[in-house]
């Protein structure tokens, strides 16, 4: 089922076209990475998905229906531009936002306390926000976003400003959501986290959707016919392949004219090479990101 669908969405601000005919489906129960360079239109797309701003053209559907205010209570949103009321106690803030998301006051308070414990801040409930460190504030904001266990969570740069320990904590929370069957949209520039966490990726560039698909399928699509071979001797020249680089016992071989990896390895063995390990090349998300941006430019 589709959790959130954008259909031919256009949006301009003044003379700037932020989104041009963007159509994208966010699949339910998966983690989708929303990628793109700065100023590509990701935040505008997210804001339209949250009904914070309206598109000039096109439409948005949430869980199969037209976007309705009542349904938005089922979305948790962590904006890129972080902010909390600085002079308010942590628990009062969580209770307030819980109520705004449709929880009853007592329930919001209880869940707030529970989520403070989940993000590793069980003792800050009565402290004011301005007494917390930046990282702690960020975790409080994450608790605000996820405390209602939203069916869809949109997390814009959830790792920024966090240390490695807390990055692991946030990754754990996102994985927990997937196991619970909840949908997460992850907008981030940390491509290594995308590779670990996302099931699908979509990329926006200059207001256009330039990439959309399952992570493995996309990586496959952008992978080049190369083999990394670890052998006990230098590789000889073989037909249908070209040596790209060699360092120590590791060499990279480019396969030409549709030569299959198995055939390439067979030819090396025939040439007397003892092959210890063979790895097909898989494009990293960082490579894909850079390539897509360059191609679009």
């Amino acid at each position, binding site marked *: 089922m589709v959790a959130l669908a954008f259909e031919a969405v256009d949006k301009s*601000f*003044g003379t700037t076209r932020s989104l041009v005919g963007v159509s994208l489906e966010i699949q339910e129960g998966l983690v989708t990475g929303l990628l793109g360079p700065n100023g590509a239109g990701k935040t505008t797309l997210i*804001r339209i998905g*949250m009904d*914070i*701003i*309206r598109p*000039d053209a096109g439409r948005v559907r949430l869980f199969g229906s037209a976007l309705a*205010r009542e349904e*938005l*209570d089922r*979305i948790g*949103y962590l*904006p890129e*531009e*972080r*902010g*909390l*009321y*600085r*002079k*308010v106690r942590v628990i*009062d803030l969580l209770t*307030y*936002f819980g*109520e*705004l*998301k*449709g929880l009853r006051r007592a329930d919001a308070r209880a869940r707030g306390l529970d989520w403070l414990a989940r993000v590793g801040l069980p003792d800050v409930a009565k402290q004011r926000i301005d007494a917390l460190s930046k990282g702690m504030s960020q975790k409080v*904001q994450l608790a*605000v976003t996820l405390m209602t266990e939203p069916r869809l969570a949109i997390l814009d740069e959830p790792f920024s400003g966090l240390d490695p320990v807390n990055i692991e904590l946030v990754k754990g929370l996102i994985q927990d959501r997937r196991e619970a069957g909840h949908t997460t949209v992850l907008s981030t520039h940390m491509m290594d986290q995308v590779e670990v966490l996302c099931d699908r990726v979509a990329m926006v560039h200059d207001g256009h959707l330039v990439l959309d698909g399952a992570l493995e399928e996309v990586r496959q699509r952008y992978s080049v016919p190369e083999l990394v071979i670890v052998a006990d001797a230098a590789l000889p020249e073989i037909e249908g392949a070209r040596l790209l680089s060699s360092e120590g016992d590791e060499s990279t071989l480019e396969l030409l004219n549709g030569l299959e990896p198995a055939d390439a390895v067979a030819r090396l063995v025939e040439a007397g090479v003892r092959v210890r390990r063979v790895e097909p090349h898989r494009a990293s998300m960082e490579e894909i990101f850079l390539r897509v941006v360059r191609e679009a430019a």
Partner: protein
Amino acid sequence: MIRVAKVRAVARFEFRNVVQRWSWVLSTFGLPLFFVTLSGTMVSIQGSFLSERISGTAVFGIVDHAGLLPRSAGLFHSEADLSPASRQTLDTLGLRDGLYLDLDSLLLRRYDSEHEAARAVARGEIGAAYVLPRDYLERGHVRALIRHGGPVLSVRASTVEPVLRQLLVQRLLSGRVPPEIIDRVREPMTIDRIAVTQDAAIHASKNRMVEQLVRAALPFLLGVLLLTALLSSSAYLVQTIVNDKENKVVEVLLSCADPDELLTGKLLGLGAAGLLQFAVWSAMVVSGALMAASVLSHFSISVPWEALGYAPIFFVLGYLFIGSLMLATGSLGTSAPEAQKMTIGWAMLSVLPLMLIVVLLEEPNGAWGQLLSLIPFSAPLTMIVRLSVDPAGVAGWEIALSMSILLASTWLAIRLGARLFRVGLLLGGSRPSLREILRQARLMR
């Protein structure tokens, strides 16, 4: 459709945030006490000063070239014939060997020449000197010699001239008309004012002056308090929007609630704080006025119940109207100073009745009063002043019409406010052009 639970959550949060601030607590409870203490101290210092000035003996000079105050009339006495207090004053001033006309706490020292009197004025021995020229009878002119660079306001100088005027009247008429005619010329009438109520009952006042003062002061004070509470609540509204922007919580808020719900919640929460503030101030002013009136003259004054009864309604309507406009325009500002600049126009419009307060107090139900009651910006304050001064003169339909216009304007202001509010909240950073604001507002529901 506005969701009540969200509005309630926003209202409660904003109300608690404001009433827990020290600035609110101080301005609500501390400010009136501070004001009363300060003004009481100032009034008593000045009262004591003036009372000492008026009760003490003052010396002025007189030069009579008109022959109206001849030595032979026996009006002037030497220093030895004066009271000990007067002699002490003369000693203090260094005045010796003169002739004095004793008019209670006022001594007129006789000088034979204008030059001599002028020197006494210049030396500061006397407050001023009055010269009756030879052609006084024909022209009625009197020259007053005052010290150059002397005090601008002299209480003593303002009391001597009426006394001198009466002395001249008496001297002009003495021996020519009967004494009782002289008395009537000196004081043609004293007026006893007696108020007649609507049912022709006579309301005798024991202290007309105090009653007049209280009747004029109460509406004025209530009006000022209403306006102050209204504007301070509206200022809190602008502040809360600026805080939302500065704290960068706008996007999270808008992802949780509709702009209409946020705007209504903020209006209600901060309005409740403003209403509470107004109630505390009103209670303090009314009870203070009652106590003051009771202490001063042991008479009871009529409390403007109509005004007090309608005040909360007009406060709420006025606040919602002006608050919506302030919230909308304030949200377009990119910083606190800019937001305040953009909202100052609304505040100025609501102060309009205070600029015409003399007209409203003099003729509360006249054309100006009626007109200002129908303009949404000025209606709350005008109606409260009118209902305080002359409640019987305000027709029921006028109150209803004023409220209806205010209500309709408030509805429009909230609708407009909600649209601008959403645009203003999202278009952070640089201020958008009017065209862009209108375009984005059209896209909103």
